[in-house]
């Protein structure tokens, strides 16, 4: 069974929202960290990574109709603002994959160095920075995706 493109696009956007929402929980736990909290950070960061991988996967599936002849890409390129595809969308395509890779690094840190994150400020700040970095990249991808969809929906 193949879902209609609109439904796939909704799932793609929903998964992106899940990543953004998970961030606030994981980051809040990391800032006021306790022994019990590190487990929740681990769950939160792993959920963010899993949701990002699913978002990227659904994004790649949706990229096929986007790129097809007569699809949104052709529409944008033929219109008055082709830079929406050539600059914004091209950046978004890769930023999503980068976000998943950055979050993989965050998962490794919280999985392997939980005790050090708890005890050492340097570890905690580094992990927090990697989480913030991933979130900046996710926000960029999310924002660009929303803008492109507004210009030329699937």
């Amino acid at each position, binding site marked *: 069974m193949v879902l209609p493109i609109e439904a796939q696009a909704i799932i793609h956007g929903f998964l992106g929202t899940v990543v953004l929402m998970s961030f606030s929980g994981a980051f809040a736990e990391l800032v006021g960290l306790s022994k019990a909290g590190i487990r929740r950070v681990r769950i939160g960061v792993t959920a963010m990574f899993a949701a990002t991988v699913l978002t990227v996967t659904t994004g790649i599936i949706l*990229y096929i109709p986007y790129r097809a002849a007569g699809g949104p890409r052709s529409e944008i390129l033929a219109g008055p603002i082709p*830079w929406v595809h050539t600059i914004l969308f091209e950046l978004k395509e890769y930023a999503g994959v*980068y976000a998943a890779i950055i979050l993989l690094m965050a998962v490794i840190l919280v999985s392997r160095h939980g005790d050090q994150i708890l005890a050492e400020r*340097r*570890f905690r700040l580094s992990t927090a920075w990697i989480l913030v970095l991933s979130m900046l990249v996710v926000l960029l991808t999310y924002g660009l995706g929303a803008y492109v969809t507004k210009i030329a929906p699937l």
Partner: protein
Amino acid sequence: MMNDKPNFGQTAAAFIGTSAAILAIGLLNVWSEFSTEIKTRLTLHAGIGPYSGKVLFGLLIGGAVWILADVLLLRMKNGNIVRWTFFFTLAVGAGMLMVFTPFLRLLLGE
């Protein structure tokens, strides 16, 4: 308590592998802009276009570098997490730049 610390070598290998994946995707993107032949070769799926090859090969390169680094850094006990995070942030920045079209146009002299 100090002996409970996990070996840092595997973490350093993860930093290297993930950075390599990001840089490889960026470099493949730059390379494909300079060569039409590479762009064609990177098109593993007609519907997705060269993006398919850039991402797949980028991830494979990152994975291979990660495994190699894991073997080489097996005995590395300690590492400066701040330095590794800085190195990783630079890799992300470079990766972003290599997929930013105005930067590519600048490289192509357009």
